[in-house]
């Protein structure tokens, strides 16, 4: 009973944060509401006893991705968008059938999935030790692939940030 109330509360907070992130006019407010939605998602993971996933969600999403989003908004010109305008575009009526189609696909696939018929397992334990063991044995290939991808992204970021024209130095003489 308490579990259901907690779930409803957390889910409504997450949804409210996500909807606000879409609908608010001020872009930084949207980013902060998105961070709130991430935190709500982390709370939902924790409610499912997935400790590692929940804390990693907080650490990565709220601690790093949200800050990345706000930095991006500030360093590009997103913050200068006039707050007086409406967030709905003039051709909003074209989005309605597209949205309905996407919703129908998602709902249809979820409702026809066999996972709904499985009983919820009791006392699922996902201690970090077993996650680590699985990552190092069965899922070693995806781990290395992700590591490679992150290294490539880091190198790309360094190269982009490092591009200063070297020919300005002799011109100063």
């Amino acid at each position, binding site marked *: 009973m308490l579990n259901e109330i907690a779930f409803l509360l957390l889910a409504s907070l997450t949804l409210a944060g996500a909807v606000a992130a879409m609908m608010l006019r001020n872009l*930084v407010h949207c980013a*902060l509401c998105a961070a709130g939605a991430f935190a709500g998602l982390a709370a939902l993971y924790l409610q499912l006893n997935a400790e*590692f996933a929940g804390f990693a969600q907080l*650490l990565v999403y709220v*601690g790093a991705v949200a800050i990345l989003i706000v*930095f991006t908004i*500030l360093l590009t010109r997103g913050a200068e968008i006039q707050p007086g305008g409406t967030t709905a575009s003039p051709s909003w009526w074209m989005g309605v059938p597209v949205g309905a189609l996407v919703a129908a696909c998602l709902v249809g696939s979820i409702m026809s999935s066999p996972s709904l018929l499985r009983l919820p397992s009791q006392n699922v334990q996902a201690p*970090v030790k077993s996650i680590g063991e699985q990552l190092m044995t069965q899922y070693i290939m995806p781990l290395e692939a992700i590591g490679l991808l992150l290294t490539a992204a880091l190198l790309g970021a360094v190269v982009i940030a490092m591009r200063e024209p070297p020919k300005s130095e002799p011109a100063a003489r």
Partner: protein
Amino acid sequence: MSGLDQIFVGIGHGLAGWAPASVRPLVAAVLEIAGIMAVFGSCFALTTIVERKVLGRMQNRYGPNRVGPCGLLQPLADGIKMLTKEDIVPFSADKTVHFLAPLALTVPVWLAFAVLPFGRNMSAIELNSGILFFFAIGSASELAVFMAGWSSQNKYSLVGAMRAIAQMISYEVPLVLSTVPVLMLAGSLSLNDIVAAQGTYTFGGLARWNVFTPWGLAGLLLFLIAATAESNRSPFDLPEGESEIIAGFLTEYSGFKYALFFLGEYLGLFALTGLAVTLFLGGWHAPFQWLEWAPSWLWFGIKFGALIFLFIWVRATLPRLRLDQLLNFSWRFLTPLSLINLLVAAAWYWTGAWKSAAAPPVRWLLCAALIALPYHWLGQALRGASPPPRKYNYAE
């Protein structure tokens, strides 16, 4: 002995026993929260006055000594001042975000105290992944710094907030990496298990604290440097240096909100110090076996106080680092050193299988050399990275 050691646990159980059985967990939780808030709140008040007096003595002057005996009622005077100041919100500030920023800073920091073991059986929550919880909660307070700087609609606040976030993100990496050897060798993420792993005693009754190993010593130093930077303390207090940028992201805050920021920063320092004591200094264990009769929370308190004194000492001694020096130091010195520390910890673990009698000093020297040489080379590389000697166009 055992009675004094478990006195707080006993009081908590006794008080919770009066509540009806259905709400007993809730009452126990509320008691733990109240205890933590009382202890660390008064610790905050005490630290403000002790810091000012110790800084004063290190600078050849008295600290505040007018308000009470030896100035001990100064926090009371400061509190009254902060609470009665007018709460000024700039006209063009974003009111909701401006209001929420101090809360967003202080609430996660209070949460972080829940996993620290202050004594035997004295951690508020026992989580399997306690350290992950701690770091996750700590990273949530960076967003509050951004909220504070941006909502003031003041370009100096924004610049200060950007610099503060850059500093905090850069120093999170060495902070977390320096704790990984501890996790590796303790085999668990739970703070209680880590403290228990440091509870055995070796030759002469000396405890097996992590700090007595080469990787533990290096890890403690790295952790303390990163913790100083994470809580914006001198010599890393560029975001709030008074001569640099007035108060950085705190410029537009006055009165109680400023007091909340102040509280949040000091509490962050206390949480990180508590974690350092837990991970490296053996938590609530005594240093020698024949000292085990003293209560465990007293040992925690003594080590905690010693580390806080160290922070104050460093603040009195070192000048402030410039932003580029700060970031260079983190990315080009601390991060590689913490990665190398992982290798040193692995070497220590594997050489633990040596069985000869001369093994301990050889092990120690080998692992110490493994980390001292990169320390030397990285330091040289860092110093060589300073800008080239200035060329004066008109002063020749």
